[in-house]
């Protein structure tokens, strides 16, 4: 009750200010009047009585102030006053204020925006039940550390393992979706029956697959993604039970997945069908097409799980030596499977933006130092007029807080904008495969991060000037001679800050240089073809009409001849199982005829290509010949190999005329008729593996890719190609049309390298600017402090050159210190990003030297300005000014 009434009083004191103030006035006035009355009563006249009473009070306003103090108003009052004063002060020096706010906002913007990405990808838990218990399960072969499971292997692993509470599989899949408007390509995935239960996901509408629903012969059913349900079915509840035709087969819609659900390795997926393992691949133990996802039993470690599945793999290897030789096992946390490839880049960007924030903070801190230096006299005056140290510190703190508040608001607002811009810059294909970036923005964690930065900045900016103006010295500031020594303190502290700034800028510049050089090297990797005026397009024809090889071959010939006859087309080639840069790991096992063989799996990705394929790409034939139209099913099988295959399997031999055998039940010898230079059949930053090219004519299928070389602009050709193919049969779909240059530049490895190089480069440029401006500030300030000294020197006959030397020497020392510290830090930092560098060493001398030179030249340029100003000092004026 007492507390409540105290609280009420306090609140009243604060918020009914005018009333309380009036009452205070009235109360004191009443006392004054009673005093006057009494004075009159003892015989004074009116005027005397009044004066005596006033005298006794000794200051009406002071008494009021003391009462206010007691009521605790002054704390609030001072805050309001300080804030007003701070705003006025800041408005009075708009250049300082806007620079400080802008620099701070810049640092915040970069780090908050990058943090939002880090949060969405690495911090936000995956949208599954207890996601940390989920792992990706793979087979492991010499060529790929994480490769697919075969269906029979999956069944055995599921049966034999003792470490997973459940193990399921999925496979990305493309469907031909029948719609009233004709066939459309649609993306989806085939999953085993328990897939969603393993993830801990329940449909928002309808039901999940029941156990056994993925077996062949069971009625086909499909789950819709939330997006597909909204887009294709308008979010209607009666979608359940409807039939959707995928690849010509009817599927019953049984449910809709939750809105927030995503599964990056299979995205963008609209239709999730049950596995129905009945294809020829599903039935073969040697055909690997599935990825595993499992939930660990409680208390089972990753290592224990790996040991267990490795043991099973070894057991299967003994049991099925033909198919399972060298088929090991791999287990990785599901988060690694999903974001493992972008994690290092994000961390580098976060580090880069952190450094930028550091340099921005140091920059603003040194600006504040200069400012507090120039306000030494103001503080001395205020202090000698009776301002308590607490009030003066309070003033600095308030100014710091106002700056940080403005900078933070601007920074967070621009970060929110930057996030949107950056997301727009990601190619749509890549974005679709990073569904965790959906809904990226300022969530609670990002706000907390921004808040933490703001707090740090507030502490830094309010304490910096306080440190500078040591309180006992405050009053001394009035003395004229105090100036020189104060300048020295500033120079010591300020110059240390500049070294930090320059070193940080150097680290960022070196990082940007190394990443830029990597990108340069990456985009100039020899990909074994001429990418200009080359477009690619995927074609898929319905099974019902084109299932037989002859039908597919006829279709391919029709497509090729129609496109060849287009006026803009120079040449056309066809390839199945992947176009250059696709990285399709569809491999075949073979052995070389006439060599001892002990059952080992010589593995090579395979591509079925048309006679015009290599010439259209502009590939280089090393030996032998290309395929011709005559190499068809009626002729003995032939193959062309790349140089990597020659290096691996025929070192120092002529491979032409050698024969290979596939490891199938009834192998037919395949004669090598040609060798081509390596074409990049995978990511740019991965060495090209041995590749086998065989004639499409001998193994025609109804889905293939086209490469077309045009005489005109590439972009205008794509719609023409699609239309031409539809003319043949509207049931055929075309997709993934792109120019070869787009495929190179938007390929994940190029994109990741480019985005990191550009962003870090941007950070580095800003850092360079801030560092150089910081150096300029220090040198200019110290030059202005030494005006008198310079005046005397010149009066005594010093030449302009020696004045230049005087100023530049200081700048030179600072820059040298910055560069040396920067070099050491750069080499250390660069070794951290070693994994991201492509064909560039982390201590690349060229980059280090270039950056050091760039920094040196910029620093020299920045310090020439104050040096020139100092040298043009008129000695008479300089001396008189003192």
């Amino acid at each position: 009750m007492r507390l409540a009434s105290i609280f009420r009083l306090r609140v009243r004191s604060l918020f009914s200010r005018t009333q309380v103030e009036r009452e205070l006035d009235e109360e004191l006035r009443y006392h004054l009047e009673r005093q006057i009355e009494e004075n009159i009563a003892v015989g004074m006249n009116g005027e005397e009585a009044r004066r005596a009473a006033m005298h006794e009070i000794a200051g009406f306003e002071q008494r009021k102030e003391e009462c206010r103090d007691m009521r605790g108003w002054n704390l609030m009052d001072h805050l309001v006053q300080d804030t007003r004063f701070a705003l006025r002060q800041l408005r009075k020096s708009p250049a300082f204020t806007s620079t400080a706010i802008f620099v701070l906002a810049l640092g915040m913007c970069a780090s908050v925006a990058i943090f939002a990405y880090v949060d969405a990808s690495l911090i936000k838990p995956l949208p599954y039940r207890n996601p940390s218990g989920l792992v990706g399960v793979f087979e492991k072969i010499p060529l790929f550390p994480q490769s697919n499971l075969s269906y029979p292997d999956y069944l055995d692993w599921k049966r034999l393992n003792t470490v997973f509470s459940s193990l399921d599989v999925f496979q990305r899949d493309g469907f031909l979706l029948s719609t009233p408007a004709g066939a459309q390509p649609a993306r989806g995935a085939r999953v085993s029956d328990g897939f969603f239960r393993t993830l801990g996901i329940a449909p928002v509408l309808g039901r999940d697959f029941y156990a056994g629903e993925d077996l062949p012969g069971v009625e086909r059913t499909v789950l819709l993604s939330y997006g597909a349900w909204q887009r294709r079915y308008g979010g209607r509840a009666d979608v359940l039970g409807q039939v959707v035709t995928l690849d010509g087969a009817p599927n019953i819609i049984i449910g809709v997945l939750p809105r927030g659900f995503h599964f990056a390795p299979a995205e963008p997926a609209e239709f999730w069908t049950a596995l129905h393992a009945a294809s020829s691949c599903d039935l073969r133990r040697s055909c690997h097409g599935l990825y595993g996802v499992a939930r660990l039993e409680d208390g089972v470690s990753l290592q224990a799980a790996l040991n267990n599945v490795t043991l099973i793999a070894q057991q299967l290897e003994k049991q099925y030596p033909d198919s399972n030789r060298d088929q090991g096992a791999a287990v990785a946390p599901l988060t690694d499977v999903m974001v493992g490839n972008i994690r290092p880049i994000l961390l580098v960007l976060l580090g880069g933006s952190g450094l930028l924030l550091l340099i921005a903070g140091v920059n603003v801190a040194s600006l504040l130092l200069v400012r507090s230096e120039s306000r030494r006299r103001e503080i001395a005056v205020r202090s000698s007029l009776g301002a308590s140290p607490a009030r003066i510190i309070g003033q600095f703190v308030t100014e710091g807080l106002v700056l940080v508040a403005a900078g933070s608001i601007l920074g967070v607002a621009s970060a929110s904008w930057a996030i949107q811009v950056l997301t727009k810059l990601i190619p749509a294909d890549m974005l679709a495969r990073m569904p965790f970036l959906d809904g990226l923005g300022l969530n609670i964690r990002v706000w907390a991060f921004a808040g933490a930065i703001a707090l740090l900045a507030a502490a830094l900016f309010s304490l910096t000037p306080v440190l500078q103006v040591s309180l006992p010295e405050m009053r001394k500031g009035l003395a004229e001679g105090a100036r020189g020594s104060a300048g020295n303190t500033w120079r010591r502290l300020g110059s240390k800050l500049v070294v930090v700034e320059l070193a940080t800028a150097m680290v960022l510049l070196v990082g940007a240089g190394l990443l830029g050089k990597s990108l340069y090297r990456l985009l100039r990797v020899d990909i074994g073809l001429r990418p200009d005026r080359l477009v690619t397009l995927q074609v898929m024809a319905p099974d019902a009409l084109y299932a037989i090889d002859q039908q597919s071959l006829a279709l391919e010939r029709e497509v090729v001849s129609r496109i060849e006859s287009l006026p803009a087309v120079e040449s056309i080639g066809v390839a199945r199982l992947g176009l250059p840069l696709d990285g399709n790991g569809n491999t075949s096992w073979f052995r070389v005829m006439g060599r001892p063989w002990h059952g080992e799996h010589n593995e090579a990705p395979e591509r079925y290509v048309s006679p015009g394929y290599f010439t259209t790409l502009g590939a280089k034939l090393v030996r032998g010949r290309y395929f011709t139209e005559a190499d068809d099913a009626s002729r003995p099988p032939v193959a062309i190999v790349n140089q990597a295959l020659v290096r691996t399997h025929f070192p120092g031999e002529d491979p032409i005329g050698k024969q290979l055998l596939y490891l199938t039940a009834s192998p037919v010898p395949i004669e090598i008729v040609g060798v081509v230079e390596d074409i990049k059949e995978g990511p740019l930053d991965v060495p090209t593996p041995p590749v086998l090219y065989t004639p499409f004519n001998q193994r025609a299928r109804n889905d293939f890719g086209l490469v077309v070389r045009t005489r005109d602009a590439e972009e205008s050709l794509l719609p023409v190609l699609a239309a031409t193919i539809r003319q043949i049969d509207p049931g055929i779909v075309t997709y993934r049309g792109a120019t070869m240059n787009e495929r190179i530049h938007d390929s994940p490895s190029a994109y990741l390298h480019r985005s990191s190089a550009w962003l870090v480069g941007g950070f580095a440029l800003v850092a360079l600017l801030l560092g150089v401006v910081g150096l300029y500030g220090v040198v200019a300030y110290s030059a202005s402090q030494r005006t008198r000294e310079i005046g005397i020197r010149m009066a005594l006959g010093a030449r302009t050159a020696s004045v230049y030397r005087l100023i530049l020497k200081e700048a030179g020392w600072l820059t040298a210190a910055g560069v040396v510290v920067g070099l050491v830090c750069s080499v250390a930092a660069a070794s951290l990003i070693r994994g991201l560098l492509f064909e560039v060493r982390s201590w690349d001398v060229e980059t280090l030297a270039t950056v050091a030179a760039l920094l040196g030249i910029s620093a020299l340029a920045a310090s020439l300005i104050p040096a020139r100003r100092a040298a043009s000092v008129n000695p008479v004026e300089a001396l008189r000014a003192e």
Partner: protein
Amino acid sequence: MSKPTGLVQGTLDLLILKVVALEPMHGWAIAQRIRQMSGEVLQVGQSALYPSLHKLEQNGWIRSEWAASENNRRAKYYTLTRAGRTALDLEAAQWERLAAAISLIVRTA
């Protein structure tokens, strides 16, 4: 802040509480009452009195209300609260102890 001469710091609060305990009183009357009760020895000036009153009010030991005064003008009357009564007992007991102790020393010497 100037204090009335010879008044030990903190004792003014005790005096105010004690005086207000008798009946609700405005500031002027409190000063007068202290002077009278002390036999004209303790002169409490406005400069010490009002800050003390406001502090005690903020502490919740006295509360104030406006009422007509003896000369028929509006004046701010202070009343002891229950918390103020407790505080008064405590402070008075403390004062007794302190005063006894000091006089013991003074007399012995």
